[in-house]
């Protein structure tokens, strides 16, 4: 019998499964698809903006208490978030994809503004249109994009790549007082292929010959500046690609700027998570959309999934709902204005009518009410009914399916996923084997 069946293979589900497995539980993940990790930038955005505010959050440790009382972060508390982040960093470091606070990474020591110690400080990295992105943890290749570093930058694009515009990025950086210029290197010197999607390019830069050629060309256009490149520096051999570039360009700092989906840094993170889970012996089964469940009183007995040929029943002691929000597919809104949690039909906090779902301005900083709907949970991450009691004794929920947060507006997507996923896994572990049974 499984201790925990995780439904959903996004960052929430995979990280929760990892945390639960590390705590000694028998875990399996079922999911409809691949999750949405590879749609985002591959950074860990913990809390970039407080609701309705234009000014970015400088330090999330200080900002979390200012969130509405029902927000998942308030529910967990700062210490629990911090613990989850440390665990996450341990996972990715073990997978060869280290993440650190861009305000504290080793590259930044000695640079003006670098504190050298990890705290809750966000860094401003660079978006693919040259706007600042408030980020807490970043993979090594993105950390040197930190805008607190005042050294001049050259943003280098590849001709014909439709998803990267170096002069646009540079112009917007300059408008914000940074020193930047754009440059382009010819892609046709690297490959005869004309398919230049980020993914295709990342695969290209897994090859040593392409790495060497790119390093030469970058060294030609960069006049001692920091170098910003599109996030295509290798998919499976990313670390080696970076090392190669570092070596070939001398000590010059270079960094990746994320691109439109599918995001190569997101894919790398997804791969790191899946490999770590495989190492823990956890199976992740995709193509299994949860489509039904059975109960015995207030306990869920099994969840049924669609597979290629027939429905399959998954029994477990506990179930973690990590199907995501409207984007991930865990919540569906219909024409009649009903929003529905798709697996267990859990109660949702949601605007009553479709006329209240949206605001007239797309970029309204308050966000659109429909995207804030979700499942309300207690301090143990258990979904609650209207009376405030857990709906089922052995059901847990985490990630973007939760209520009282709009992770995309807040730029808290990965923070919510990791912190609540970890907290839910820990709560299940306590339930299954009361402390101090769990050991590391």
């Amino acid at each position: 019998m499984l201790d925990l069946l995780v439904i959903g293979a996004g960052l929430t589900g995979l990280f929760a499964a990892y945390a639960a497995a590390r705590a000694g539980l028998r875990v399996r993940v079922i999911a409809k698809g691949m999750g949405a990790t590879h749609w985002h930038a591959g950074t860990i955005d913990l809390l970039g903006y407080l609701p309705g505010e234009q000014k970015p959050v400088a330090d999330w440790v200080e900002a979390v208490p200012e969130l509405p009382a029902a927000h998942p972060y308030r529910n967990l508390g700062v210490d629990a978030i911090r613990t989850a982040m440390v665990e996450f960093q341990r996972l990715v470091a073990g997978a060869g994809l280290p993440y650190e606070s861009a305000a504290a990474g080793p590259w930044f020591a000695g640079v003006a503004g670098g504190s050298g110690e990890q705290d809750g400080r966000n860094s401003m990295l660079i978006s693919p249109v040259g706007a600042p992105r408030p980020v807490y943890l970043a993979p090594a290749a993105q950390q040197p994009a930190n805008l607190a570093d005042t050294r001049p930058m050259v943003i280098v694009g590849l001709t014909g790549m439709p998803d990267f515009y170096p002069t646009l990025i540079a112009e917007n950086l300059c408008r914000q007082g940074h020193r930047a210029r754009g440059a382009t290197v010819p892609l046709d010197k690297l490959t005869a292929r004309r398919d230049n999607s980020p993914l295709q390019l990342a695969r290209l830069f897994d090859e040593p010959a392409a790495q060497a050629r790119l390093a030469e060309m970058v060294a030609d256009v960069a006049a001692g500046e920091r170098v910003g490149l599109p996030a295509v520096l290798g998919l499976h051999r990313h670390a080696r690609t970076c090392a190669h570039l570092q070596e070939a360009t001398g000590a010059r700092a270079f960094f990746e700027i994320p691109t439109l989906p599918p995001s190569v840094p997101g894919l790398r993170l997804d791969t790191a998570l899946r490999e770590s889970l495989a190492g823990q012996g956890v199976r992740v089964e995709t193509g299994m959309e949860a489509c039904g469940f059975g109960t015995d009183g207030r306990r869920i007995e099994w969840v049924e999934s669609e597979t290629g040929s027939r429905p399959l029943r998954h029994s477990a002691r506990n179930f973690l709902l990590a199907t995501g929000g409207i984007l991930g597919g865990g919540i569906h809104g219909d024409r009649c204005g009903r929003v529905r949690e798709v697996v267990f039909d859990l109660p949702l906090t949601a605007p009553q009518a479709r006329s209240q779902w949206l605001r007239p301005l797309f970029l309204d900083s308050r966000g659109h009410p429909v995207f804030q709907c979700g499942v309300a949970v207690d301090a143990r991450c258990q979904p609650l009914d209207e009376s405030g009691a857990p709906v089922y004794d052995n059901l847990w929920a985490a990630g973007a399916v939760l209520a009282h947060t709009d992770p995309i507006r807040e730029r808290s997507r990965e923070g919510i996923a990791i912190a609540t996923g970890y907290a839910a896994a820990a709560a299940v572990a306590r339930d299954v084997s009361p402390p101090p049974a769990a050991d590391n």
Partner: protein
Amino acid sequence: MRRLEAEILVIGGGATGTGVAWDAALRGFRTVLVERRDLTHGTTGRYHGLLHSGARYVLKDPDSAVECSGENSILRRTHTHCIEDTGGFFVVTPEDEKDYPDRFAAACLRHGIPCEELSAAAALRREPLLNPGISRVFEVPDAAADSFLATHATAQAASQAGAQLLPYHELVGLQISGAEGSRAVTGATVVDAVSGEEVRIDADLVINAAGAWAGRVAALADIEVRMILGRGVMLATNTRLTNTVINRCKMPGDGDILVPIHTVSVIGTTDEQVNQPEDLRVEAWEVDLMLAEGDKLVPGLSRSRILRAWAGVRPLYQDNFSGESRDATRSTALLDHAKRDGIGGFLTITGGKWTTFRRMAESAVDAACAQLGVSRPCRTADTFVPGVEQGHYWLGHRLEEIEENRLQAELVCECELVTRSMLENAVRRNPTVTLDDLRRDVRLGMGPCQGGFCTYRAVGILHQMRAAGETGPQEPAAPPGAAEWEVDSLQSPARSENVAPARASAGPVQVPPGEAPQVSAAIDPQAAVSQPNLLLRDFLQERWKGVAPILWGQQLRQERLDELIYLSILNADHLPGQEEESPMSGFYRLNSED
């Protein structure tokens, strides 16, 4: 203040106004056209795309039907490539009255509209998604028309015939001279919406072709023209549900037309009388009604993914009319204000259908000839606009050209198959101020993601062109002197690839003496509207406006992905220049106060 002179000044850059400019220029008049926004920004660009055979109005409004029928065959010749020869069905659903079909068929015969009954089974074989309960089907020569392309092609033809077309020039005043009893309109003052510059245009005659805004234009001469404004709402589905235009065989009503146009099907329309030409709201009940009525034509239509909803305002006119706009005539109204109001040199042409725009233009210019005391025959019925040699439009043409020329890697908009050179070509060869103008040119952002991926790319490409104009004399942002309105290659990936100046080798383009270089404001480094952040914000809001009324299910999910892209990844709401405004920003926010 700039000054221009014209024999005929046309107000309004919709189908009718552009048609008037074409007709007048072909008859040898020095012609200027002013339009306050982009060509087709008004009702022309907001209609469902049905080229009427006339059958729809054959019982209700036979004059209009006969007009449509004649124009249908002419436009198939003069604007071939703007038309997809879909054919049209009139279908009798179980809800439709039983005696209408026979009266309908008899009236088609009487008025010379080709109409052939086929069996319901045969119709269902051609259109399997049609309501299987239909009892009778009539086939007529309806077709689907690209009103953006057709108007642009007409504009190019007008420009080649010598007309000067000035989009983004807003009329602010009419000059009236002469003593009481012999007063006449002798010109107009317009403001360049991009630069803010005033332009005075002296003209022998002014033709008001402002459509739904015609009443406002006439008011500038203290003339009352009471337009009957009928707002119609339309929805686009994310795939084509049929390949034939489908009409209900009944008296025209709400939601009884389904038009396959390019990659989508459009269901329309409502008819709500409104007071303002910019009352383009889409009410929830109108969406529900369209879906409910659509289900009667194609069962399940209401469960298909809806991409967008929008409204257009019909510019109807009928003397002393006091009913509902649905019942107002669709016939053309030509008002000679000399006879009607005692003010010479001023005509208003309104009413009508998109299908009859050429005919309307003809009658307006005939009246202009009469007033100017010259006799010059109309030539538009026998003149082809540039591009007709491409033959009728067919849905696969972009894909075929992209595959044959291996242009897959050049795609900027995967939904609508827009390549980089199509975008560059469009912005170089016809005046462009916003990304929405490019949408009308090449269908940028009209597919399922509604600009999710292509907005960013288009902004990046335009910024590259703008930067090249600043620093690279070898590659001017827009080739100076490249004729405006070179639109015959707009829709074609292969032709765009060939006409776009080769990036490395293009020599300086020859500027014809005396002709100022025409640069699209969107890539003009001197123009405030070329700010990339402004282009981006404007287009995101423009797209949002049309998806908001229909966001549910998968399209709601799609918009959440677009939020992920523009908020989380790009952080587009924290770019510099939040205060920048284009001439269109306010319109995109219209009805947005909450």
